């Protein structure tokens, strides 16, 4: 049996547990806990005039009611702006409970604690909150026109004006042989994990300590936030992310109001308190993403090479900016994709609206950036009558140009310097995989069946694995069990498998002996969190370094015992042995026992180890200076900058010209995330991402009416694609290792979702010959576009007679 598992399609070790119902999700914890429920604002913008709880007091089972007036000290302050930025000139955050004003439907106003959730909701129903309604701002265009202000002191609704430029764009545009300008839109969607957020808190009065379970992507930071806000010492707070039923970004923002209010109640009431978010709450009080208005001007030459790019984006950040301007920065900096842009200027104005806050959703601004760049490529190709793949190819960064410096500053404050990649390689593979050159034959064949067929593609580069750091702890027990922990959390990605593969490979132990724990502050106190496709890169490398530390110590101890040079030793299948000399060996578990000079013979392992024990020298301490008992090691990985993964997607759509239904009949993905730890898991990530990409392109949107009411706040009307809507996906891999980390890996978590909207928009445009400038698009909207005499025909359509005209 090999322990060299790095790169192998090892089956996900967590799945058996999760699939048979042995997962331990937030709502599985504390079945007897008191339940919290929230009275949430029914208005998008209003002053809270009065809160009358009298009618609720008689409800049997009511335990406590909290309003803003019950909050003191740091809890009465606004929630933190997690990631301040000099260009975020007007940050605003809400309060744990509304302080006099509400800025979106769903904002928490009152917390009720009762014997169970049913009773808590009964109480909520009887609390009468009087509001004075204020004018409502919905959508980027309304925010931009600034007829009304979301926050009175910010009359232009602009929270931030993010600006980067790599040269003087105006003269470059003026000198360009051609220019074109256009405006396009992309709508809101949201993460929609199967399990919503949730918090369970328990106060141990005798120990003055608090244990909190939270369905979070960042347990260490939630811990720090709770300690700060509730004025507890950090060592008296532990936060554990149990099994988390999906995150996709929404659980990285913190502290959510509920993450503070539930512990507050647990302490005040000296009782276990739990809140688990329901789906409606998730729609109206968690987070959304993606709405932008994009104004783009591009200069290019006769060959389609870009000479200058000028982009002005309005980004809807919702009511508050707790997560800073990460999403705008990511859009601004990742927009450039795999291309050489001689001069680039980008301005992203992040604007307030009276809608749910915007924080990262898988892709985190990249799908919008990709949509801007890739649709620009399509427009250039169309204007010049060139193949869309050819225009892309001419603009690609060549493999010999790495490291490639875009002269931009990334979300982590570090330069956008691409570490490695082979973008022409991606494009060639993609064309082969999707059959790009056969598109015209496919189109003709589909036309015979009465269908309009179109192909589209999109390429992306994704900065993954941003710092500042992650850590790993690896410990070998006397039983032979290998404990691995890292502070970042898991939401179903397969960390228990990939981190174990890394340790098995590094340490030479069977994977069955390895146990991985993530997101538990009792086990690992320092961590950043799971986002930005960083877990494998960051914790993977940290754990590899920790495993190497353990290996080194094990070899040193074993060398001492076996009286050989450590360099002559290897660890194979859990046994330390002299290379090439059978017999001269000792099990790693025995090394673990020997590593601790205090060895009460509780068990067989300790007894066995005594045969190896040699009397220590009398003039040295049993534990040498600088050494430590035990066979364990902690290490950290802190990269100088992000590593850049890349990929290319193509979609083939068929459209029914009678009903305007859109069917994605083929979807091809070429993916490069450097060295692959587990190809099966990477493909799973790609599949899930593509499903969300298709959802974002064709199905999902947040339908707000002009009053800021979300019209489709349920799975009945928010159209997440079912398996029946997600096409089969063809995947090809390319592996361009990262030179930045020891394992040569790049992140893979978000890639699948990034190019979906761009590629599908391109394919629809190709099929119908009309410009697609607003995504997502549904059949009813496509019908409107097709019957509108004013909608723009593509030049390709004019060249290709027949399509585009309505029957």
């Amino acid at each position, binding site marked *: 049996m090999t322990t060299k598992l790095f790169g192998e399609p090892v089956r996900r070790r967590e799945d058996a547990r999760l699939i048979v119902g042995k997962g331990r999700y937030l709502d599985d914890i504390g079945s007897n806990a008191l339940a919290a429920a929230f009275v949430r604002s029914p208005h998008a913008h209003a002053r809270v005039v009065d809160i009358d709880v009298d009618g609720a007091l008689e409800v049997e089972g009511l335990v406590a009611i909290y309003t803003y007036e019950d909050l003191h000290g740091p809890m009465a302050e606004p929630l933190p702006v997690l990631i301040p930025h000099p260009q975020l000139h007007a940050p605003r955050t809400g309060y744990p409970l509304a302080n006099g004003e509400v800025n979106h439907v769903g904002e928490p106003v009152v917390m009720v604690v009762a014997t169970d959730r049913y009773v808590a909701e009964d109480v909520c129903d009887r609390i009468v909150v009087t509001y004075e309604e204020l004018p409502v701002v919905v959508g980027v265009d309304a925010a931009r026109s600034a007829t009304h202000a979301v926050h009175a002191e910010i009359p232009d609704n602009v929270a931030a004006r993010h600006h980067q430029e790599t040269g003087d764009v105006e003269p470059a545009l003026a000198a360009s042989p051609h220019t074109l300008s256009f405006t396009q839109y992309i709508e809101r969607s949201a993460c929609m994990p199967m399990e919503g957020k949730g918090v369970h808190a328990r106060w141990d009065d005798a120990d003055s300590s608090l244990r909190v379970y939270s369905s979070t992507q960042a347990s260490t930071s939630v811990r720090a936030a709770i300690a700060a806000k509730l004025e507890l010492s950090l060592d008296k707070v532990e936060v554990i992310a149990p099994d988390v039923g999906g995150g996709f970004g929404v659980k990285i923002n913190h502290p959510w109001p509920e993450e503070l209010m539930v512990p507050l109640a647990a302490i005040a009431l000296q009782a276990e308190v739990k809140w688990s978010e329901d789906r409606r709450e998730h729609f109206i009080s968690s987070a959304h993403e993606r709405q932008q208005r994009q104004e783009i001007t591009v200069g290019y030459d006769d060959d389609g090479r870009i000479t200058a790019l000028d982009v002005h984006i309005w980004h809807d950040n919702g009511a508050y900016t707790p997560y800073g301007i990460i999403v705008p920065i990511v859009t601004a900096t990742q927009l450039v994709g795999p291309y050489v842009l001689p001069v680039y200027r980008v301005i992203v104005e992040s604007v307030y609206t009276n809608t749910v806050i915007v924080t990262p959703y898988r892709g985190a601004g990249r799908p919008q950036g990709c949509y801007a760049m890739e649709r620009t490529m399509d427009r250039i190709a169309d204007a010049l009558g060139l193949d869309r793949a050819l225009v892309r190819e001419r603009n690609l960064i060549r493999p010999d140009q790495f490291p490639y410096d875009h002269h931009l500053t990334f979300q982590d404050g570090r330069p956008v310097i691409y570490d490695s990649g082979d973008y022409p390689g991606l494009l060639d593979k993609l064309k082969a995989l999707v059959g790009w050159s056969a598109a015209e034959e496919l189109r003709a064949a589909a036309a015979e069946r009465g269908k309009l067929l179109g192909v589209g593609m999109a390429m992306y580069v994704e900065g993954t694995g941003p710092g500042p750091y992650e850590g790993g702890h690896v410990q070998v027990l006397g039983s032979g069990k290998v404990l691995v922990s890292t502070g970042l959390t898991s939401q179903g990605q397969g960390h228990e498998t990939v981190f174990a593969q890394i340790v098995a490979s590094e340490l030479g132990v069977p994977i069955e002996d390895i146990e991985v724990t993530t997101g538990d502050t009792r086990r690992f106190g320092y961590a950043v969190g799971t986002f930005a496709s960083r877990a494998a890169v960051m914790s993977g490398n940290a754990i590899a370094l920790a495993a190497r530390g353990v290996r080194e110590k094990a070899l040193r101890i074993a060398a001492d015992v076996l009286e050989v040079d450590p360099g002559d030793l290897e660890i194979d299948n859990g046994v330390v042995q002299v290379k090439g000399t059978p017999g001269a060996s000792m099990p790693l578990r025995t090394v673990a026992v020997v590593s601790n000079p205090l060895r009460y013979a509780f068990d067989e392992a300790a007894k066995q180890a005594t045969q190896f024990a040699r009397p220590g020298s009398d003039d040295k301490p049993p534990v040498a200076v600088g050494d430590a008992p035990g066979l364990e090691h902690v290490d950290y990985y802190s990269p100088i900058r992000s590593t850049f993964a890349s990929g290319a997607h193509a979609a083939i759509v068929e459209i029914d010209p009678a009903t305007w239904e859109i069917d994605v009949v083929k979807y091809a993905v070429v993916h490069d995330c450097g060295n692959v730890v587990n190809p099966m898991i990477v493909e799973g990530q790609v599949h899930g991402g593509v499903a969300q990409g298709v959802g974002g392109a064709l199905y999902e949107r947040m339908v707000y009416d002009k009053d800021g009411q979300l019209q489709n706040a349920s799975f*009945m*009307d928010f*159209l997440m694609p*079912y398996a029946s*809507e997600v096409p089969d996906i063809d995947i090809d891999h390319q592996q361009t290792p990262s030179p930045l980390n020891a394992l040569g890996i790049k992140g893979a978590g978000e890639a699948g979702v990034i190019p979906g909207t761009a590629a599908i928009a391109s394919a629809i445009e190709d099929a119908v010959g009309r410009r697609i400038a607003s995504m997502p698009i549904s*059949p009813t909207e496509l019908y*409107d576009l097709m019957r509108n005499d004013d909608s723009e025909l593509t030049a390709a359509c004019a060249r290709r007679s027949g399509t585009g005209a309505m029957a």
Partner: protein
Amino acid sequence: MKPAPFRYADPGTLEEAIAVLSSEGAGAKVLAGGQSLLPLLSMRLAAPTTLVDINRVPGLDTVEATGDGVTVGALVRHNALLHDAAAARVQPLLARATANVAHPAIRNRGTTVGSIAHADPSGEMTSVLALTDGHVTVATPSGVSTVEWRDFFVGPLETSVHGPAVVTSAFFPALPDRSGTAFAEVARRKGDYAVCGAGVVVTLDADRRVAAVRASYVSVGLTPEVHDLTDAVVGQPADSADWAAAGALARTLVDPDTDIHASADYRRLLVGVLTERTLVAAAAEALGGTE
């Protein structure tokens, strides 16, 4: 998303069910498959004082297919009807339409009669009851009566039956001779409520010419309606009739609404397209039956 408090009763007989409904008064609701009622409760869009669960009532779970038509008991699940071969022979629309009701998990619990009692104009089976010219049987304290579909559907989620009542069955008349049917819909996702659905019945005369065309739509209008499209194609040979003209006529007869998934105009477009497509299929079936 937890229901407000309610009382619960699960009577063992129909008489008992009626009695409980009577004694509990206006706030009482029948609970059948719960696939429409429970979401309303959980979202607190409905707060009945009492749920009268009829699932223990004997004799309501049968499908009876005779030459006259198909009687579907109140506890027959959509899935049972979907797979009832005898019912499909007598009235093929039943299987064709139930196949479009939601997904298997919901069809396994949701009842066809419950769907009709719920009177959702987006439901397939309300439309099929109308198209086949069916009726329901209603048990009340004053006895058992039948109500024609036309008199039953009053508005969206509203029927003419008030007070303590259990719809015990729905009756779908058999497909007439020399007739064919088809059912089709456009939904945003597979299994969703239709953006627009169409069911049609084409009846031919002895010369295999079109004698009658009836159509009914799903998610179009506030209550199920049946539209007579005969005029557009009457007397034309069934294998070459101008079905597009029938589709065009249908478009002029319907009055769909706009919602977040589709504009009224788009629904009207689909009415035309689906009418034409289903009529082609239904005519072919009718022709096949006359060979």
